C-alpha cells in the first residue's frame, strides 16, 4: 500500500471510531472531557495558523474565544435569536473584530506582536469583568440554551443534557471541518506563503508578497475559529463568566500547539487533548499545577521543540525502516 492509501485508511478508521465513541465511553465525565477537548481542537487549530504556520505567537486566543462565547450567548438571551444562527454568526463577528485589532498590531514583529495581542486579551478580560450590566461580570450568565432540537428522517435529534452524544457529534463535525479548512490552507498557495513568512519575512516582502495581507488573513481565520470554539463552549457548559477567557487559557492554547507539534495538522489535535486531559491527572497535585505546567512548557521547548507528532512520526518511520524490505 502506498503512503497516501495508508493515511486514507487510518483517517477513515479514526473517523469511524470517533463517531462510534459515545457508545464506547460509559463514563459521562469522560465524555464531557472529550467534548471540551474537541472544542479545544478548534481553538488550537486557530492558534496553529498564526503560531505554527506564520510564526507569530498570538496570546489572545482565549480572549477571542470569550468574545465568541459572550456574543453568541447575548444574542440568544437578549435578542432571542436561534442558537443555530448565533453559532453560525459568531465566527464572522470575531473575524471582523480581529481585522480591527489585527491591523495595527501586525505592524510590529515577533515578540512585540505577542505582547500586543496579550494586551488585547487583558482588555477583553477587563471589559468582560467590569461591563457587568451586559456581561454579568464575575457572577456571570447562567441558563444558556443549547441548540434547539430538530427531526431528521423521523428521528428527533436533541441536544439537552450533560455529555450529550448529539452535541458531541456536532462538535466533532465542526472540529473536523476546522481541521479540514486548516489542512486546505496548509496545502494551498496561501499556506506556502505563510511558511515563507515564517522563514524569512523580509525576503517574502522582497519578492513581491504583501506579507501583511497574509498575516492578517491568518489572524482573522484564527480569531474566527476561536470564536466558534467559544460559542460551542458557551452553549455546551450553559454558564459563562470571564474566568476561562483569561491570559492563562491563551497560554494553554500555545502549549497545546507546542506540545502537539506546531505547523502540523494533527499536532494541535493531539495537543488539545493533552491540555484537556493533563490537568485532570495533575489535579492530585493541584497547588503544584501551575509550576508543573510551566515546567512542562519550558522542558518541551528546550528538548522537544518540534512537538509530539513530528517525533512520533520520525519514530514510526524509523521502525518501518527496521522492517525487512520486500524485494
Amino acid at each position, binding site marked *: 500500500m502506498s503512503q497516501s492509501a495508508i493515511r486514507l485508511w487510518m483517517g477513515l478508521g479514526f473517523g469511524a471510531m470517533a463517531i462510534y465513541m459515545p457508545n464506547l465511553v460509559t463514563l459521562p465525565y469522560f465524555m464531557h472531557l472529550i467534548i471540551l477537548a474537541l472544542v479545544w481542537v478548534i481553538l488550537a487549530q486557530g492558534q496553529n495558523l498564526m503560531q505554527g504556520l506564520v510564526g507569530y505567537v498570538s496570546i489572545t486566543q482565549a480572549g477571542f474565544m470569550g468574545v465568541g462565547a459572550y456574543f453568541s450567548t447575548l444574542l440568544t438571551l437578549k435578542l432571542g435569536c436561534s442558537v443555530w444562527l448565533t453559532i453560525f454568526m459568531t465566527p464572522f463577528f470575531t473575524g471582523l473584530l480581529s481585522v480591527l485589532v489585527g491591523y495595527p*498590531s501586525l505592524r510590529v514583529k515577533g515578540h512585540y506582536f505577542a505582547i500586543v495581542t496579550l494586551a488585547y486579551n487583558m482588555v477583553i478580560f477587563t471589559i468582560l469583568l467590569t461591563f457587568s450590566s451586559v456581561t454579568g461580570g464575575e457572577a456571570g450568565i447562567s441558563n444558556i440554551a443549547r441548540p434547539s432540537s430538530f427531526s431528521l428522517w423521523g428521528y428527533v435529534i436533541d441536544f439537552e443534557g450533560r455529555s450529550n452524544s448529539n452535541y458531541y457529534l456536532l462538535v466533532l463535525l465542526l472540529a473536523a471541518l476546522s481541521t479540514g479548512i486548516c489542512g486546505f490552507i496548509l496545502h494551498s498557495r496561501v499556506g506556502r506563503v505563510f511558511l515563507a513568512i515564517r522563514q524569512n519575512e523580509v525576503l517574502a516582502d522582497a519578492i513581491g508578497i504583501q506579507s501583511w495581507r497574509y498575516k492578517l488573513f491568518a489572524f482573522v481565520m484564527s480569531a474566527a475559529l476561536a470564536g466558534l470554539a467559544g460559542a460551542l463552549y458557551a452553549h455546551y457548559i450553559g454558564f459563562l463568566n470571564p474566568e476561562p477567557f483569561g491570559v492563562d487559557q491563551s497560554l494553554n492554547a500555545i502549549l497545546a500547539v507546542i506540545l502537539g507539534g506546531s505547523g502540523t495538522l494533527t499536532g494541535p489535535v493531539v495537543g488539545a487533548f493533552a491540555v484537556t486531559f493533563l490537568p485532570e491527572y495533575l489535579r492530585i497535585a493541584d497547588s503544584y499545577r501551575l509550576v508543573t505546567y510551566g515546567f512542562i512548557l519550558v522542558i518541551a*521547548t528546550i528538548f522537544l521543540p518540534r512537538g509530539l507528532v513530528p517525533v512520533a512520526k520520525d519514530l514510526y518511520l524509523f521502525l518501518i525502516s527496521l522492517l525487512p524490505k520486500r524485494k
Partner: protein
Amino acid sequence: MIEIFQQSLNGLAIGAVYVLIALGLTVVFGILGIAHFAHGSVAMFGGYLTFLVMEKFGIPFFTAMGIAMVGGAALGLVIERLAYHPVQDAPHINAFIIALGLTMMMEGMNLLMFGADQVVIQTPYRGVFHIAGIAVAELRLIVILTACVLVGAITLLIAKTKTGKSIRAVAQNRQAAILMGVNVSMVSLVVFAISSALGVAAGALIGALLAIAPGVGEGLAVKGFAVLILGGLGSIPGAIAGGLILGVSEAMAAGFISSAYKDVIAFLVMILVLLFRPEGLLGKR
C-alpha cells in the same frame, strides 16, 4: 487645576516603578533579543521577599530591599543559565515560549512560597506635606527618589564601566563583540543579574506603594512592554519617558474617567503609538 497636579504627582510615583520594570526589560531585549516576560513575576517575587525579610529579621525597608535585590540577581543568573541559555541559537519564538513557561512557574512558586494573600509592605514613610494646596505623600517622593538613584546608577554603569562597555558592544553587534574578545556568555549573565535586581526593586516599591498579590506580575510585565513600545525598543531614555507618560496617563484616567478602566489605558496608548509611530516616541526609524 490642583486635581490635575495631584494626579500627575501620583502618576509620577507609579510611573517611576514602570521605568524600573521597563529598564530591566529593555537591557535584556537589547542584549539577548529576548522578551523576558517572566520579569513581572520576578518583580513580584522580589516584593514578597522584601516583605518576608522585613518581617523575619525586623530590619528597615531599604536594607531588606537590598537583600532581596541580591536574591533577585541570583535568581536572574539561574533563569539565564537554565532556561534561556539552552535556546539561544533556536528561533526567537522558542525563547518567548520559554518566557511564558517561566512566568507560569514563577507565579506558581510565588503562590506556593508566599500564599495567595495580598501583601502590603509597611514603611515608616507615612508623612504628608502640603505644598501649594497639593498633598504630597512622603512615600511617593521616596519611591520617585529611589527610582532616580537606581536609574542613575544603571546609566553610569552602562556608560562608564568596562562591563558597561561590553554590554553596549554586544547590544550593537553581537558577532563583532565576540570577535573583539568580549565574553558574550558572561555579559548575558551580568545583564540578567542587573535586570532582575532592578525588577526586584520595582516589586518592593510596588509592595510599599500599592500591594502585591498573585497575578499582579503579569500585568506589570505587560505594562513594562507597553512602556518599551511607547518609548522605542532598546532605548533607555525612551523607557524613562515612556514609563512616566504611562504612569501619569493612568493616574489621570483613574482620577477623571474610571478606575475600573485604568489598566485599559496602557493598552490604548500602546495601540495608538503602534498605529501612528510604530518605532516609538524616542525610537529611531
